[in-house]
Each structure stands twice: as C-alpha cells, then as structure tokens.
C-alpha cells in the first residue's frame, strides 16, 4: 500500500512540478528564440538560440531606466517602511496600551484594502503637490501598503522572542528603548530581513499605483514598462518575453537564496502567530 501511495504522490508531484515550472521555462526558451521562429509551431526544445531580444531590449528600448526606477522605489520604500513598522510592531507585541486590539485590526484591514479605492484622491493630491511621475509619489503609497504587512509579520516575530531577554536587560539598567536597541533588534534581524524581502517583492511587483501615478517612460517601473511595450496592433513578443525574464531575475534570486525565510514570513503573516 505504502509504495503505491508514495508512487502516486511521486507522479502527482512530478506533474505539479511541471505545471509550476513550465511557464517559466517557456518564457525563458521563447525569449531566446529568434522573432522569425517565434510564431511557427513551437518545438518544446528551441533549436536555435539568440540573444537578439535582449540586445534590442537594452539598446533600443533602454530597459535599464525602468529597472533603475523599480530599484530606487523598492529600496526607498523598504528603508522607510521597515523602521516605522518595526517600532510599531514592538509596541504591539510587548507594550500594554489602550487601543492595541483596534490598531492591530486596523492594520490588518488596511493591508486588505483594494488599491483602486484610494487611487482617485491620491492622484489628485499628488497632482496638487506636483508629485505625479516622481519617486516620492510612488514611495508614499507603497509604504502605506507594505508597512501593514511588515507590522503584522514583525509583531508575530517579536512575540516569538522571549520577553525575559528584555526583562534581563531592564534589570541590568537599560531603559525599554535601550533594551529594544541592544537586545531585541539584533535578535530580530532574521524577522526584519524577511520583512525587507517581502516589502521589496511587493514594490517590485506592484502595478496599479505605478500605472496610475507615472506618466512617461522616464518614471515607469518595470511592470508598467513591460506592459506598455505592446503597440496598438502588434506585440513585440520577443522583447516582451526578454523583459519578463529580466523582471523575474531579481525575484528568482531572492527566492533561491531566501526561500526558508520567505515561507516563514508568509506563514507568520497569515497565521495567528
């Protein structure tokens, strides 16, 4: 029985693996296929490989600009959101104060907001402040939407740390803030790193705000730039696919190097913690 069962799981596992990975394989394979062969009946293994699409991507389209934009916005957002979130999460995890439950519920609710529902006023405000098509104009909404996630995750993380460590520090003469700085934060590095990874991924992937609050190629982020490649009547698929591969590379690197941390973060953010 057991061996039959494990064979079934083995086959199902292999099938699922294929389903999960095939689109990514296909994206890479097609991005290396010359334009002329892209629209013939596709063989599963590409026969001729070429880097033409990548060359065109960086030479003709200057795809470095959206990459730079995405990196700047994602890095800035992470640097602003994390300290803010860490302080808030520490208070939620450790301190007794009125409105704690309400705040926690509010934070969860905000992370669930449909983005479209705050696009109109943000657009008008950013236009008024002349922040449309600027980095701050993207960082502000990104912080708002990624901070709750980080707070939620870090709260769960801080709760896992033994409170006795801070208590020991306080008996050693440290104030609470000092204990936070000397003892809690160094120990929370894995949690903060996880929050940073998830924040970065959120910014790298975000589409609706970037589409709404940028006006031209100079400020497009990667997702917007890739999407707007399409001409009115024709899609330059080769370049689009090359661009999607480029957009996937940082993500894939993060996943490869930090998969344990990401999984821990996802489940901490979702479970009762």
């Amino acid at each position, binding site marked *: 029985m057991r061996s039959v*069962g494990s064979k079934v799981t083995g086959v*199902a*596992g292999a099938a*699922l*693996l294929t389903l999960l*990975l095939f*689109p990514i394989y*296909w*994206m890479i394979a097609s991005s290396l296929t010359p334009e002329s062969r892209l629209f013939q*009946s*596709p063989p599963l293994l590409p026969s001729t490989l070429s880097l033409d699409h990548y060359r065109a991507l960086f030479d003709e389209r200057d795809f470095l600009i959206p990459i730079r934009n995405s990196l700047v916005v994602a890095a800035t957002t992470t640097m602003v959101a994390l300290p*803010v*979130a860490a*302080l*808030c999460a520490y*208070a*939620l995890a450790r*301190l*007794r*104060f*009125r409105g*704690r*439950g309400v*705040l926690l*519920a*509010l934070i969860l609710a905000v992370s*669930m*907001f*449909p*983005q*479209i*529902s*705050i*696009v*109109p*006023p943000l657009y008008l405000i950013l236009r008024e402040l002349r922040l449309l098509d600027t980095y701050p104009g993207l960082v502000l*909404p990104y*912080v*708002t*939407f990624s*901070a709750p996630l980080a707070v939620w995750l870090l709260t769960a993380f801080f709760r896992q740390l033994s409170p006795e460590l801070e208590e020991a520090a306080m008996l050693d003469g440290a104030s609470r803030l000092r204990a936070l700085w000397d003892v809690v934060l160094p120990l929370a590095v894995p949690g903060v790193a996880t929050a940073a990874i998830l924040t970065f*991924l959120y910014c790298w*992937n975000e*589409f*609706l705000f970037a*589409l709404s609050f940028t006006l031209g190629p100079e400020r497009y982020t990667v*997702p917007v730039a*890739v*999407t707007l490649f399409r001409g009115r009547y024709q899609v330059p*698929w080769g370049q*689009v*696919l090359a661009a*999607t591969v480029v957009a996937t590379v940082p*993500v894939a690197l993060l996943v490869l190097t930090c*998969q344990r941390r990401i*999984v821990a973060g996802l*489940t901490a953010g*979702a*479970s*009762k913690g």
Partner: protein
Amino acid sequence: MSGQATAIEREERRLARWLVAPALVFILLGSLVPIAATAWEALHGHDLRLPWLGRPFVGLANFVEAIGDPRFTSALLHTVGFAAITVPLELGLGLALALIMHTARRGRALIRLAALLPWAIPTVVAALVWRFMFDAQAGIITAPLRTLALVGESFDWFVHPLAAWVPIGAADIWKTTPFVAILLLAGLQTIDPALHEAAQMDGAGAVRRFGTITLPLLRPALVVAAAFRMLDALRLFDVAYVMTGGGPGTATEPLSLYAFIALMQRLRFGYGSALSVTVFLLTFAFALIWVRTLGRSLVGDRT
C-alpha cells in the same frame, strides 16, 4: 498609593504611543484619509476634462448612474463570478499541492522552490507569459488544440467573450495556488503526527483520517487562505488589464478595471470614485461576513 503604582504603566503607554505614531500617520494619511476622500469625491460631479464645470456636490447621483450602467453591472458580475470560480479551484489545488509537499519524502525543497517562483514573480509577468502561451498563432496551448482539431483554424481565445476568461483564470490560478499551498502546508505541519498514528491504531484508513483529522484541524488555515484569496480576487486588476484589457469589448472587465478606465482614461473622477467605493464596499462586506461567520476565533484571540 496606586496612582504611583501606575507610573510605570503610564510611562509604558507613553512610549507605546510614540512607537506607534509613525506607522499610524502613514496608515491615516496613506489609506484612511484617502478612502474617506474617495467616498467624498464619489458624491461630486468631477470631470478633469471639463474643468469649467467645477466640482458640484451631486449626492448619490454617481451611484444611481452606476446602477443604471450596464457596464457597471456586468463588471460587478464579472468580479464576483471570477472570485466565486477561481478561489475554490485555488483552494482545492492548493490543498492538493500542500498534501504532496507534506508527504513527499524526496524533492520537497524542489517543489517548495517551484511553488515560490510563481507566487513571487510580478503578476504582470505571469499574465504576459500566459497571454503568450494562449496566443492564437504561436501559443503552446492553442497550437496542439488546433492540430487535434479541437478548435477551429481561426480560433482565438481573446476574441471570444467567454473563452477569454480561460487564460485569465489559468494565469491567476497558476500564480496564486502556490500561496494557498504554502499557507496550508504550514497548517499541516502543525498537526501532531501522533494524532494520525493514534487514528491508525484505532483502525482509520487514509481517507477517513483525512476527513476526520486533517480537514478539521486544517480548518483555521483554510479559513485564512480563503479570506486572503477572496479579498485578492475581488480586487482583480493586473491580470485582466494585461491579458485582455477587459476585452473583447468589455466581456472580461472586472470592477477595478472599469473604475480605473473611468478615472484614468475618461478622467471622470466623480463617477470613477463611486466605482472605486463599490470595490471597497464589496471587499469590506465580504470581510465582515467572513469574520462574523467563520473568523471569530481567528481574530478574537489576537488581542
């Protein structure tokens, strides 16, 4: 003397306020004030292309217009229908994937890696890749179907009002099922294996153990995963925008996309805001019902 005793507690509350303040400011300025502003804007006639008309207060006129707008009703229908169909599929497939990851003795790390990739890559990228795979000419999915004569020579997913939903659903399911699986896997891992062994000693078979031990104990994880997915599906935007643009016509246009078009293309901010508010109300109503009926135990003891 108890006044003095609470000095420490007062100090603690003061510190807490300072620590919480920056995050609270961002949440207030970034989402609560804007959501209120959207609701307020929705009560006005405001067209950025007709600035001379100003921004008169029109009460609920925008909402009344929406109710009479067939494009709105069909967008609403699309949104709810899409969520109602894809979310159960994602939960079912996610559960299967989680069980496989849980029981697999070899290659667990590989499957987890393979599952994280679709979750992590930009939605836009997923949509483009699936759009390419469903392409009428070159699509790796369409071409074999045509060879087998299962579809006509000129068949194109994206010109058929119903068939156009298939690629959207496929991309969404591919991208989000892994997330569900990861949540459920964490739930599975919290189940004490001794429970399964005890049930086995009691003579319960695999199917029975799944029904009487795994599923009930997985319930909290399922409730959470379903809520996450549902709220996400109700604000569907990226995939539809990238794959079909809402087309053919408006056959695949969800509410978020219609709101976006009203706002950013037609520049009708009053009406677009009203549409945005309905997206918000839709998710809010769902969340409320979900927490009331299923999630009480999940939210209640967090505080």
